[in-house]
């Protein structure tokens, strides 16, 4: 699936709500650290929220708002320094960090794609690099091979063609997709991506979004994406968490967030996407357009209806 255009509308709201199985639950989560020779930094403070199975969540906020720190807790790379975090039934508190073996097992279930993940490629061939995860999971070679082929196809790279190439012979966009395949090959229940679209051209971004959505839709997997790319948020998320200076300042649906208006978004360090500004202008000019409209088609439909009525 790669239409490159508008991504299909989100799943019916009832779908995720029906199962209502919590996969991530943070209660009063805080994280502090101490850089050498400098005062301690509070990266996260008192963050509480739940993520349900099958949801598509965007975690947004300005640079330094604690987004990346937050998601690195999801797979046990970081341990909370206050509060509690539960991920897929594994519990982490400052007093009881996850034992190393359990944390490692959790990492196969919560796949984390880092920012600029192409920086981590290391094997001689694309196939060998993608195989790193499943191999660590302990799958026999035949199954590893199967998963590698599957993952490469998921990101639109033919395994027969790309599998044998060196990762450094690929373009930046292809390298990023190989790195994504490296995480998809573990088939995690929760897929977390940290700024996946940074540095990609618009076509590359649309392709990536489509691939993420396809993975999510298969088997109702959960996707959390950390970003300050508002276009990505609009295209992918049904729910949004906004972080500002380490605190959770908003938790709600995408349309609820957009309905907060441009001024509020700017206060949180977010630059509203053009569509939101267009809706605001239209409303200011007296057009009956719903606040919180997140799709161009929806705005167009409402405008069409309004003009028809006036005629």
């Amino acid at each position: 699936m790669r239409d490159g255009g508008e991504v299909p509308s989100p799943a019916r709201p009832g779908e995720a709500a029906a199962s209502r199985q919590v996969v991530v639950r943070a209660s009063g989560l805080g994280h502090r650290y101490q850089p050498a020779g400098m005062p301690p930094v509070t990266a996260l403070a008192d963050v509480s929220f739940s993520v349900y199975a099958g949801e598509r969540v965007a975690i947004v906020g300005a640079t330094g708002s604690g987004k990346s720190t937050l998601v690195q807790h999801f797979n046990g790379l970081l341990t909370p320094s206050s509060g509690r975090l539960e991920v897929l039934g594994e519990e982490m508190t400052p007093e009881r960090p996850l034992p190393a073996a359990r944390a490692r097992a959790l990492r196969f279930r919560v796949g984390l794609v880092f920012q600029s993940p192409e920086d981590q490629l290391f094997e001689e061939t694309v196939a060998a690099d993608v195989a790193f995860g499943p191999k660590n999971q302990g799958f026999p070679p035949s199954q590893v091979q199967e998963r590698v082929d599957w993952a490469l196809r998921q990101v639109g790279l033919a395994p027969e063609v790309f599998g044998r190439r060196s990762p450094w012979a690929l373009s930046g966009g292809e390298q990023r997709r190989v790195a994504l395949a490296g995480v998809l090959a573990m088939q995690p229940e929760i897929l977390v991506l940290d700024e996946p679209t940074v540095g990609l051209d618009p076509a590359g971004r649309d392709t990536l979004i489509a691939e993420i959505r396809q993975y999510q839709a298969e088997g109702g997997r959960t996707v959390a994406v950390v970003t300050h790319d508002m276009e990505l948020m609009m295209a992918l998320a049904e729910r949004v968490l906004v972080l500002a200076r380490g605190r959770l300042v908003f938790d709600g649906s995408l349309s609820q967030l957009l309905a907060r208006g441009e001024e509020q978004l700017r206060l949180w360090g977010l630059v509203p996407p053009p569509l939101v500004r267009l809706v605001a202008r239209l409303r200011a000019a007296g057009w009956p357009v719903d606040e919180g409209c997140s799709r161009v088609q929806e705005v167009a439909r409402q405008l069409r209806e309004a003009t028809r009525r006036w005629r």
Partner: protein
Amino acid sequence: MALTERILLGQYVAGHSFWHRLDPRAKILWTILWMGTLFAVSTVWGYMAFVGVLLLVVAISRLPVGALLRGVRPLLYLIVFTVAFNVLFTPGVVLWRWGFLTVTREGLVTAAQVTARLLLLLTGASVLTLTTSPLALADGLEALLRPGQRWGLPAHEMAMMMSIALRFIPTLLEETEKIMKAQKARGADFESGNLLTRARSLIPVLIPLFVNAFRRADDLALAMEARAYRGGQGRTHWRELQWGWADSATLLASVVLLLGVAWYL
């Protein structure tokens, strides 16, 4: 704990203490003096005196002692290794024997001495990098090496290389940390297994680290080239180094004190 929290070497802690304001040339000479005289010391009293001098300097420079000690931690393995070697393989008066392992009195003494030297060497040298900004350090080094230019010593290039190296230490540490985390996220295990397994588990970290370092070096060279960088020839400085009486006094006092300690104690 994160790597950047542990390793202090090559990191500047901004401040306005007397020691911070000393001329970088004075501090570089002081560090050379410190290292040189340290190797001439061989008695307990001598080491005590050096510890005293170090504490005095740390107090003057108002550096956090905890941070200074944290910087020593990466050297721990080296120290443990040297101590073990010295204790077990120095011939002399046998104190204790178990199988082929013997502990001698001379071994214990040498081990203690080597440990003291390594610790004092590292902490003394980190005072320089902690209190001197990389820019000042490079300027100071260049000024000290300039007389050597007559004999073909590339003073400016050496100073530039050093300041680039220092500049990239934190960057590389951050990068190492990020790559380690990314590979851990794919199930890499750096903590278990024997030494060989652990060494092998670092391959997925070292290869991307080197690839990125080379790419970064290329980018940097290109950026310097693009700004028509041509080295030190005819280059002027915004901040001229100024040697003051405080620099002479500090250096003179240190020469007298450290040489005295090395000579008499």
